[in-house]
């Protein structure tokens, strides 16, 4: 006899309960109680159980146990999984190609071509010799300790994912800024993506895609890193000076002209701040994504943890810090250049 027997009999559900299977799976707590030969009946009001699913199941076996909830979710997901991956697989295939070819390109071009190209890009976006020198020294340091290959893998993944984040995130941000309804609908999703522990959305992704495919970690990184660029694009466009917008209207701009000639250029400092954050978050995620076979410095960190190779883990961690500083300084410097021409 259990605590809530009287409840079910009072509701006249005794017959329905009796139909339930008696041999439902036992919880660990039940097993322990049985082993100790304890009665499930509470001895005093002090032990009175909350009417949870398991407690109700004790009284009425037809009532579902809480484990059936998680199990149901799992089974539901497995049931739609095949159809879902039928749609998602071809849709996300380009991501695999992009990641694979970026990795192939970065690793199979000799270092004396890759490093000068990167330095040229740094100079192009920052126009600062000091930064070029700093970036060159950082990469040479990583190459000197034989981490060049890992660092390039990490960079290749970040470039592809951050680029796709911007490609998808900016239009979403623009759509949010133009309609309050879209903003209301999108913000909870963004909040969820930002707060959900990154390990959690690795789980369904593993079910959906093969672990050998690079799009698995690509999607994880994009989902995690896209949030700031969406948010800041939306914010940036909403913050554009109302007077300038009014002037644009008064001179007869079409909505499209307004977007491309006024709103996006004036929101650019904010959008670039979002891109900076997105790049930093992709770097954070690329380390975690090494759990699902993302190559790069994260693999070394993982090796450090798994094999307790302290030195490898620490040096790889420092390498990530160096990459983070490089990426942050370069994007911040280009942001500062944009800000300078956008002064009000």
């Amino acid at each position, binding site marked *: 006899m259990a605590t809530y027997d009287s409840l079910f009999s009072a509701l006249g559900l005794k017959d329905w309960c009796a139909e339930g299977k008696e041999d439902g799976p036992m919880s660990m707590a039940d097993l322990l109680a049985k082993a100790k030969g304890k009665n499930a009946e509470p001895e005093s009001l002090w032990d009175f159980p909350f009417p949870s699913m398991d407690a109700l199941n004790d009284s009425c076996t037809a009532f579902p146990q809480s484990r059936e909830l998680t199990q149901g979710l799992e089974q539901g997901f497995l049931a739609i999984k095949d159809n879902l991956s039928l749609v998602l697989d071809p849709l996300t295939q380009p991501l695999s190609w992009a990641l694979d070819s970026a990795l192939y390109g970065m690793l199979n071009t000799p270092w004396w071509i890759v490093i000068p190209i990167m330095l040229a890009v740094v100079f192009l976006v920052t126009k600062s010799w000091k930064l070029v020198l700093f970036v060159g020294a950082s990469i040479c340091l990583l190459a000197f300790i034989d981490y060049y290959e890992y660092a390039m893998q990490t960079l290749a993944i970040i470039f592809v994912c951050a680029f796709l984040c911007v490609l998808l995130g900016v239009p979403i941000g623009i759509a949010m800024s133009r309609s309050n309804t879209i903003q209301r609908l999108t913000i909870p999703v963004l909040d969820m993506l930002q707060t959900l522990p990154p390990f959690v959305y690795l789980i369904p992704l593993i079910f959906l895609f093969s672990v050998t495919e690079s799009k698995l970690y690509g999607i994880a990184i994009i989902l995690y890193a896209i949030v700031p660029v969406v948010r800041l694009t939306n914010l940036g466009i909403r913050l554009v000076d109302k007077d300038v917008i009014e002037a644009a209207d008064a*001179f007869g701009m079409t909505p499209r002209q307004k977007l491309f000639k006024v709103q996006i250029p004036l929101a650019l400092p904010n959008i670039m701040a979002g891109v900076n954050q997105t790049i930093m978050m992709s770097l954070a995620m690329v380390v975690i994504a090494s759990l699902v076979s993302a190559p790069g410095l994260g693999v070394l960190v993982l090796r450090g943890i798994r094999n307790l190779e302290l030195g490898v883990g620490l040096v790889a961690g420092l390498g990530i810090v160096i990459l983070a500083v490089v990426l942050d300084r370069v994007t911040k410097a280009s942001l500062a250049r944009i800000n300078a021409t956008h002064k009000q």
Partner: protein
Amino acid sequence: MANDIKISIKNLYKIFGPTPDVALEYVKRGMNKADLLDQHNHVLGLRDINVDVCDGKITVIMGLSGSGKSTLIRHLNRLIEPTAGEIRLNGNDVLDLNEEQLRQLRREQMSMVFQKFALLPHKTVLENAGMALNIRGHTVADFENEAVKWLARVGLEGNENQYPHQLSGGMQQRVGIARALVSNSPIMLMDEAFSALDPLIRSDMQDLLLELQGELQKTIIFITHDLDEALKLSDHLVILKDGEVVQQGDPQDILLNPNDPYIIAFINDINRARVLRVRSVMKPHSANDTDYAGDISEKDNLETVLSLSGGDTDKTYRVVRDGETVGSLSMKDLTRALVPSEA
């Protein structure tokens, strides 16, 4: 020709709130602004505005903040939609235009100058000046000559490749005016265009505007809260209070015959000798007038006549227009006109 009506505003109402149509009925039955806000939570923006704007003249709409003047000017190019009424441009109701026609009107008929300049901060002065043409699809090369010409005309020669933030407020507003001129529209809307500038620059800009107007004869609707500015610029003055027109007409006439305590309070503070002109206070010409102390133009202000007379109140001057005698002005009349009237 000169007095052709370009824009005619008829029975214009604007009420802000969730159900302006309902509130409009109350307003038409005579409910005032405070009651409407109290009882129905709607804000009365404009009530029964009737204004005719003459072609080629400067019409100044004056009022304190909250009087609805900025709301009114934004109705002309429909940046704000009215609750009821008509706005006729060259006889056609602006409210009948569809989106495309309205855009056409804003591009070709009306240009606007803003209180806070509202220049594009990421574009050069040249590109800002050519904004209207750029919107119509012209490239910098197309409008460069035109933009450089007008920038030079407003005194910004050599600043073409600077950015707005590198210019002072007065210079930025010159870019704003050049932008409106480059668009080559017959109508210019100026929303407190000089209010953000310091007094000396403001006076310069007013002179510049009058000079340009002498050349171009555009139809200008100018918004201001400054009576001195209004009197200096206006051919036709409209005084707005709480969304209603209190008095409108020739500014000299309003100054001499104010019909509302609100206006009297306004005009008490101004320098009447500088604002009033001879034509407003002179007597019509009669044949038997004899000894004139000298000739004065009808356009002279009273300050000029005062300094000419050296303070002698016995003198009488002959008033001439283009060499013809049109009237006479005795110093006694002049002195009388300097005392503000009691309405």
